[in-house]
């Protein structure tokens, strides 16, 4: 199945048969050692029942997977992860888009605004988590003081929704800068003439945004949606660990956090490995979707 591009590209042929393999060898070696080997280990471990020290182990085929998938805590974790990822992606993108549009309108000191907006991206997830944790700490947090004086009984330690809001805020805040950068670039690519023409025709700002700018930003938005979802799914361990530790109850235990908790705190290696294999399947599926559909359907530029 060759598509048009490959047919048109001339094949490059190396005169030496060994050289090309040598050239890709380092990359292959790294992939083998850092991906295939651990992934194979995870797959093998996921079919074992083992005590933490590895003194006794039993090969159980897919029993760990059956157990994990029948565990109400795991199903809850899937729900938590979906809610958390979508909320984080949407909040991070909406706020970034708003800021980008606003920053575009600034005439003086545009560069300064942009730089300041991009800064938070340099903050490590765990640090971002700690910052928000302090701001919203029920006893010493300044923002929780404001919330309480507004009559809101703020308590992320016991109220699951509050904990989730806190987590989404911290995770989204961290991602806003990244999205901001892409939206600013996207906005600059929108032809000024179109906007001016619309303005002359009497279209107001909101109208201009929704009918011209927003559709033209679609490729950027779609790309960011994928990136943000993947970020929320797999890159937020540090934030969850620092802010809620999965609590209260299990209301903020994401899939990745559960792998850590079951494997590294509770030392149930088989279950944990089975969960990480499931995550691996999810990642592979997401990547496949991205390459198959997203890359083809969205036209850039």
């Amino acid at each position, binding site marked *: 199945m060759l598509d048009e591009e490959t047919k048109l590209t001339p094949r490059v042929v190396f005169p030496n048969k060994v050289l090309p393999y040598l050239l890709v060898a380092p990359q292959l070696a790294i992939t083998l050692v850092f991906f295939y*080997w*651990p992934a194979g280990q995870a797959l093998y471990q996921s079919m074992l029942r083992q005590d933490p020290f590895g003194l006794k182990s039993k090969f159980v085929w897919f029993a760990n997977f059956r157990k994990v998938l029948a565990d109400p805590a795991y199903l809850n974790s899937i729900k938590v992860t979906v809610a958390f990822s979508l909320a984080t992606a949407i909040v991070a993108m909406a706020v970034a888009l708003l800021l980008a549009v606003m920053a575009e309108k600034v005439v003086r000191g545009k560069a300064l605004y942009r730089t300041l907006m991009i800064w938070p991206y340099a903050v490590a997830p765990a640090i971002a988590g700690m910052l928000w944790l302090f701001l919203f700490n029920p006893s010493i947090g300044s923002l929780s003081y404001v919330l309480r004086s507004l009559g809101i009984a703020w308590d992320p330690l016991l109220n699951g929704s509050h904990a989730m809001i806190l987590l989404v805020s911290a995770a989204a805040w961290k991602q806003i800068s990244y999205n901001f950068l892409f939206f600013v670039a996207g906005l600059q690519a929108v032809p000024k003439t179109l906007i001016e023409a619309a303005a002359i025709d009497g279209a107001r700002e909101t109208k201009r945004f929704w009918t011209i700018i927003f559709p033209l930003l679609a490729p950027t938005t779609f790309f960011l949606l994928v990136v943000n979802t993947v970020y929320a799914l797999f890159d937020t361990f540090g934030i969850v660990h620092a802010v809620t530790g999965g*609590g209260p109850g299990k209301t903020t235990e994401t899939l990745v956090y559960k792998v850590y908790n079951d494997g590294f705190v*509770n030392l*149930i290696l088989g279950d944990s490995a089975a969960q990480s294999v499931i995550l*691996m399947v999810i990642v592979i599926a997401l990547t496949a979707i991205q390459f198959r559909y997203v890359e083809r359907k969205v036209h850039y530029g």
Partner: protein
Amino acid sequence: MKLFGFAAGVAATLTLLSTTSAFAVTQISWWHAMTGANAEVVDKISKDFNASQSDYQIVPVFKGTYPETLNAGIAAFRAGQAPDILQVFDVGTGVMMAAESAIKPVAEVLTGAGMTFEKSQYLPGIVGYYSKPDGTMLSFPYNSSSPILYYNKDIFQKAGLDVNNPPKTWNEVWEAAKKIKASGAAPCGYTSTWLTWIHLENFAAWNNVSWATQQNGLAGGDVELKINAPIFVNHFQALADLAKDGTFKYGGRTSEAKQIFLAGECGIFTESSGGLGDIVKSGMNYGIGQLPYDSDAKGAPQNTTPGGASLWVFSGKSDAEYKGVAAFFAYLSKTEVQEYLHQKSGYLPVTLAAYEATKKSGFYDKNPGRETPILQMTGKAPTENSKGVRLPNLPQVRDIQNEEFEKMLAGQETAQQALDNAVSRGNAAIKDALGN
């Protein structure tokens, strides 16, 4: 893809750690989890031991938090690179015990080196916890603590409570907490760290009631939790009721509640005796009382169980290494070393001689309250209910308990429901862990 990097990371760490030097002396590696002032104690003790003789050299290595240290030790063992000595926190005791062929009982290490282990010289409550039911000591108690009651004297004064008379029973705590809240002396009456350790495990021991079958798991085998007995339900219902209007304030699963107490938000506080340092540092006008007991319990107070950590010795080492470990443990048991450890770190002394020496030195007169945890632990000979608790998967069972407590305190469950769920979920998890 961070997940798949874990195994590789562990492997890399191990290669770094496996460097052994070509000294004539036998090196003894000691992986620990001590930070701050407690880490200084580790370094000083190691240095002094190394200077005291020329055959062995103790090499302490900091491996992170308690769970991280335990995980590092387990990963190293699996890779055949275990350290000689591993510091394991109380909760990990069951995990270590279940790995019988991975460890060498401390009693054997000592007798193998021609030493005898005089059990009577050690504080019974502590040694009992780290021993097999037949009395064989498995690990060496290094740092032990016990939960006690702290109170803010300024808040007590404002609320019209007796500043020199802290509440002794839980009912008295509830009454005092209500008074603090009602009088406006503080926004909250009572808070506590570690609900699982203080309000379940120590609550059971202190009131001499069973926490689980099989001597709270010490005798091994099929263990079933007993924490939904009426005395626990009443206790937790009282807590849940007080939580409704904020008279009791929940801080978190571990020691987060300390902030609440230090911020002056709550008047009464239960926490490990090891947490004293921060309270002293805050400059608060504080008082110390013994852990409250349930006035309905017969014979209460009994004795509390130790928290903290102990030192485990891995199997498969050379005789020279075991002799070195034995020499180090003998050194650790010396009165002056124990005295130093106790007074500097705030943990309990392990030997009776060190306790007597500290008493004689007038340390307790100058530092009132520092003796309370020792008196609590040694006041009475431990019973089947008060030697401690042990499960192969205590961290997981505590997690389950915490989850149910959080639901209860959020008003989603009654104490009866929360404890019933904690028992059924906990029992299932224990069964699963034993079925490995």
